[in-house]
């Protein structure tokens, strides 16, 4: 679909809807309309731009984003050659790609690797829980980032661009697909309890898309997941009900006195939805009815994961209730002490700490989705902004610098071939050796699984029909089931 062109495209839809007026409220109405129609499925939607171009495999997406740059070499990209070359100088790789300069000698993985599952997937000892899921996962070992700098690289993974101000993938999905449950936001973000990622809300902005598509960050450690969800103390429930009744009458009178302007009706509707969110959000974010076994599976009550396990379980509950895109951040911003995967000083020390928060809850989330049959139509994404260098950062240091030209991500679930390894890095994990996957390729694949042709999901902004994938990208056919 394409948006924001002032003329014909919107016109016909608007006519179709209510024969109503231009300009004002059009977007609002489109938003409400999408919610309606997603609910009643295809019938009324025939021929609309919202009809998926191909049968979608996935209905919703969950992404675990690991901030700071997870080392591919110490987790999923097994490089025996590094054992052999350990302590030697790195030769023939051209300009140093690191952020800080001064690379030292090559360093073997700080963890032993072992093969897991029927797929024989190599996983290091860092992730014992995820290793058990290996046969459900599809690894891409040939990811390629444009920037070696955290925030531009994170922005690129989230929005396709390394700059501020471009809509995030979740916003594009909300824009393209709307929501399955109008009583919850279409795009929910669950930040790490230890802190927001660098760039904060820029990471889930709707950019130049209308504001209703931006990610809604939930305050997962707070009693109230979003601000202003409830009336403040001191306004009795009965009084608030009476107020709302009066407001509805006032607004209905106004809409009736000024017929033809759909936005006036949309405003009435927005208060009804708000009222429903007041119950649907606490219901979704509370854990009542979750069994003890589930709490144990995720490790909810274990302090080692620093609250992150709660977010994983909350994500599943939100997905169950029709949220289109849930993004969970593992790790926060940059600084000391480290609260993300940015293992510059001592890779092992750093990754040990981070894995203790991430491994079990994420593995639990995958298992839980699977046992509920939700992995059938839920796309699971695990990603990071870049990998880490095969050489140490600085002489004799046990740390690794940033590394953008080869790293690993994995996907699972709807439409994805399980137990597959796609692409490869070279002998020391420095460059992509085969089947390079750029960020636009990655995004094109996600959109494809949701039934969207990435070249047709566009929005006009300042002279350009913008896309999540800019002018690049091709879905990775070989990993599709």
């Amino acid at each position, binding site marked *: 679909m394409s948006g924001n062109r002032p003329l014909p495209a919107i016109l016909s839809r608007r006519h179709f809807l209510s024969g109503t007026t231009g300009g004002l409220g059009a977007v609002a109405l489109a938003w409400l309309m999408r919610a309606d129609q997603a609910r009643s499925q295809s019938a009324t939607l025939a021929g609309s731009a919202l009809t998926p171009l191909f049968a979608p495999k996935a209905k919703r997406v969950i992404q675990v984003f690991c901030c700071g740059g997870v080392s591919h070499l110490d987790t999923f990209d097994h490089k025996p050659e590094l054992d052999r070359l350990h302590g030697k100088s790195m030769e023939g790789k051209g300009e140093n790609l690191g952020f800080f300069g001064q690379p030292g000698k090559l360093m073997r993985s700080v963890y032993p690797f072992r093969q897991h599952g029927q797929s024989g997937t190599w996983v290091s000892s860092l992730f014992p829980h995820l290793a058990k899921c290996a046969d459900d996962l599809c690894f891409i070992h040939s990811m390629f980032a444009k920037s070696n700098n955290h*925030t531009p690289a994170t922005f690129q993974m989230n929005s396709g661009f*390394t700059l501020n101000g471009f809509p995030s993938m979740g916003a594009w999905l909300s824009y393209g697909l709307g929501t399955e449950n109008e009583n919850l936001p279409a795009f929910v973000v669950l930040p790490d309890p230890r802190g927001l990622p660098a760039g904060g809300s820029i990471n889930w902005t709707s950019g130049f898309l209308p504001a209703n598509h931006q990610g809604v960050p939930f305050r997962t450690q707070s009693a109230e997941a979003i601000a202003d969800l409830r009336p403040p103390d001191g306004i009795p429930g009965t009084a608030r009900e009476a*107020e709302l009744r009066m407001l509805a009458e006032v607004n209905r009178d*106004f809409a009736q006195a000024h017929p033809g302007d759909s936005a006036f009706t949309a405003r009435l509707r927005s208060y009804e*939805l708000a009222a429903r969110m007041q119950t649907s959000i606490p219901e979704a974010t509370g854990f009542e009815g979750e069994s003890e076994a589930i709490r144990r599976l995720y490790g909810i009550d274990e302090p080692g994961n620093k609250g992150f396990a709660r977010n994983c379980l909350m994500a599943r509950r939100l997905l169950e209730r029709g949220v289109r895109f849930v993004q969970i951040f593992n790790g926060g911003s*940059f600084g000391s002490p480290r609260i993300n995967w940015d293992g510059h000083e001592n890779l092992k020390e750093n990754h040990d700490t981070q894995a203790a928060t991430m491994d079990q809850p994420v593995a639990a989330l995958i298992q839980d989705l699977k046992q509920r049959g939700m992995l059938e139509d839920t796309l699971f994404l695990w990603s990071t902004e870049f990998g880490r260098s095969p050489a140490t950062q600085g002489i004799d240091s046990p740390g690794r610098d940033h590394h953008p030209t080869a790293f690993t991500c994995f996907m699972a679930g709807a439409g994805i071939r399980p137990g597959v390894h796609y692409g490869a890095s070279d002998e020391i994990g420095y460059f992509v050796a085969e089947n390079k996957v750029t960020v636009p390729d990655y995004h094109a694949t996600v959109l494809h699984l949701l039934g969207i042709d990435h070249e047709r999901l566009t929005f006009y902004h300042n*002279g350009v029909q913008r896309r999540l994938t800019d002018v690049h990208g091709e879905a990775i056919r070989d990993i599709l089931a």
Partner: protein
Amino acid sequence: MKRTPSRSSWLALLSVAALMTAGALAADTVDSVPPSDRKIIERAQKQWAFQPIDRSIAPPPTDPGSDSPAAHPIDRFLRSVLRAKGLSPSPPAAPRDQIRRLYFSLIGLPPSPEATEAFVQDPSEERYGRMVDRLLNQPQYGERWARHWLDLARYTESTGFEYDRLRDNAWPYRDYVIRSFNRDKPYDRFMREQIAGDVLEPVTRDGILGSSLLVCGAYDQAGNSQANLTQRAITREEELEDLISVVGQTFLGLTLNCARCHDHKFDPITLTDYYRIKSVFEGIQHGERPVETPAETKARETQIAALKRDIEAAEDQSRRLYQRGWSLANALSHPTLRPAGPAPLVRWSFDHPSLSALEGTLEGGAFLRDGQLQLPSPGAYFQSPLLARDLREKTLEAWVSLSDLQQRGGAAISIESADGTKFDAIVFGEQQPRKWTAGSTGLERTRNLDGPEETALPGTRIHLAAVYHADNSIALYRNGEPYGKPYTPAKPLATFHAGDTRVVLGLRHHGGGSPWLTGSIHQAAVHDRALSAEEVAASFRAAGLAIPESEVLAALTPTQRAEFAAALDRAQKAREQLANLSKPKSIAYAGRRTQPPPTQRLKRGDVKAPDGVVTPGALSALTETLGDLDLPADASEADRRIRFARWLTDPRHPLPARVIVNRVWHHHFGQGLVSTPSDFGAGGTPPTHPELLDWLAARFMADGWSLKALHRLIVTSAAFRQSSDFQAAAAAIDADNQWLWRFQPRRLEAETLRDAMLFVSGRLNPQVGGPSFRPFTTTDFNATFYHPFDKDEPEFNRRTVYRMNVNSGKDPMLDAFDCPDPSIKTPRRATTTTPLQALGLMNGSFTLRQAKLLADRAAAPDPNDPATGVRHAYRLALGRSPSPDELARAVSAVRERGLSSVCWVLLNSTEFLYVR
């Protein structure tokens, strides 16, 4: 040769423009396009926006059959089109709607009940006209229209990207825009100032501030300081693209940025054009600069030089005297000890119970005890005044006790630039635990050293020295012995400039991640030369012996003591004067200027594929009309922008006047004549009323580029004053109302909504200009994080245009109401209606408070008279009295729940949120 098509033929082009698709105009391959390339000119001839503005157009005659002849020229244009479409304009709106509409359009605030009633009593042309003039002369006019402009300028008050740090001195540009609008600065001058105001003679403060436009967007600080040169070059190219696109979109309505990697797909803009324009702006760098004219700078610099000489002389004298006294006192009290070590430029010893301003200040919980500077916990440090001498070659020394050996990254002593972005320091445990390094900006001059891990127990005094030699080598010493091997970093020594440099103890540098050292400092010193190994050893052996100042002075003769005191006094006074002078009176984020090397065109925009030098230039498609900039590749940075500014504001230029009149139209009517206000190219939409657009543009220039005259012209038209009532028959012909058969109702923008609530509650603080209010707290964790709060204090009750406009600290309510991300150039805001908006208005503390205040303001003194309060609240919020039914409903609500509940309903009502 005749190049200008006649009017009829360029109007005919519009349909061509509308039909053009991406495939129709594939990009040409151009390796070396001369500026007057034929193909490009031909392409330009096919596009309406590149045709000269037709100044011969006159409004069509009034329709003789019409019963209400439209004398207003705008209406004559509009009505001839309406007639042709089988439509007719709506009757005038009710006076109440007219005045509310006019107030919101011009000043972004609702009218007072008194103003409304006066106009309802006498809705004459004369009164309306006087009201227009009065509103245009209110400062709120500039505030309202500056917000529109700041949307275009991608104006932000934080850096964005990873760090998103506050940009304290961005606001002068915001005030510049407000002031320019309020003074009705001719728009051509407004444009010139924003391109080259800092270099166009005569340079004025406004000119300097105007040029902030070039840098007031986001800035990738991390990307610009990283080690990888290719990535750094890419970061810079992105930065320039942002700059070029803001210039192209804002003034020209063209997406110049689309030609960075290939010729523009739709418009006559070549890859070469892009790099020639890039050359115009290549000298612009992000950063702050003084806001002072060259004459002011020169006068200040002369004074500074004189003061520095005075300080140096006075300090030399006092140091000589003190050194003499110290040697004498040392000999007296410690006759067996070795002679004194080398005399430093500055020494701090903490054996006085108090510090003089001359020495420095204790910060963040630092205190003096036991003759030592105590740094009990992170946050505590000591800060010297600014040094009055340039330093490059130097030695830093400190005698320090660490409170524990686990601590990481603090510094015993650091010399840093005043903004903390440049420093050299003696740092503990930053890269490697328990080891000392010579820390530096971005680790540029730092190396891990093969020295021993620190073992000194807490309370044990250690002497450290870092010596920076003129040959760029650096040596570290611990207790007088070399610590690791001396080394020469790739980066040369930094120069620390007089008046911009201070010394801090216990802090690595301002703005770093975890820069604190905990423990205590006995003494510290800075030498303005590199000490030899022997001198460092002597210093270690000799100093650290604190001799009280009284003993030192006692060793001098009375005359010497008096001279010493006088010299100190002289230096102190001069230093105070220097501190006042060394900072210019005002600083703004207006960018720095550098002279760039000749600009290379880049193949496919790839920084690794330079493809020949280009000269600074403008659009080749307009060369025949406007000429070239005629500059060599090595033209001065200033000349480039001066010529470009002249080119841009040439009255023959087809674009800028059309673009701005369309923007003003867009904000008055909710939709421009061109509905893509920042894209007048073939990718945008053609004008609905091309003749009106040209007539307005020509008239605007003839009126001296006066925006106020343009506003007056537009808001006095019948089209602006017509009813907004919906008509099904008209909507069937023109659902989008593009022919303006009615006034289009529209929702208040986020800022206007907030301002209007404050206005009707009586809480709006009308203070104009100055630093932004910051309704958030911040935390720093390498990056800055923002935590919004809502407070009822006068500074936070100012208009929203004065809110500190940071990237990641957006206000949830403004955000929900479509307030754009500051880093995005936003010519046209979206209007959404969402449940999150409803929640914010229903439950947010701001709305609830304004409802209560409105109730307090509206309530009658007699508690048994709810009707008066309701009537007053309606008039304040909606500009009208309630109907009998409404009154009855509200009065019963007041009896049940109080007037503030009714006010809450009014502030949540669609009628309040919409302008009709």
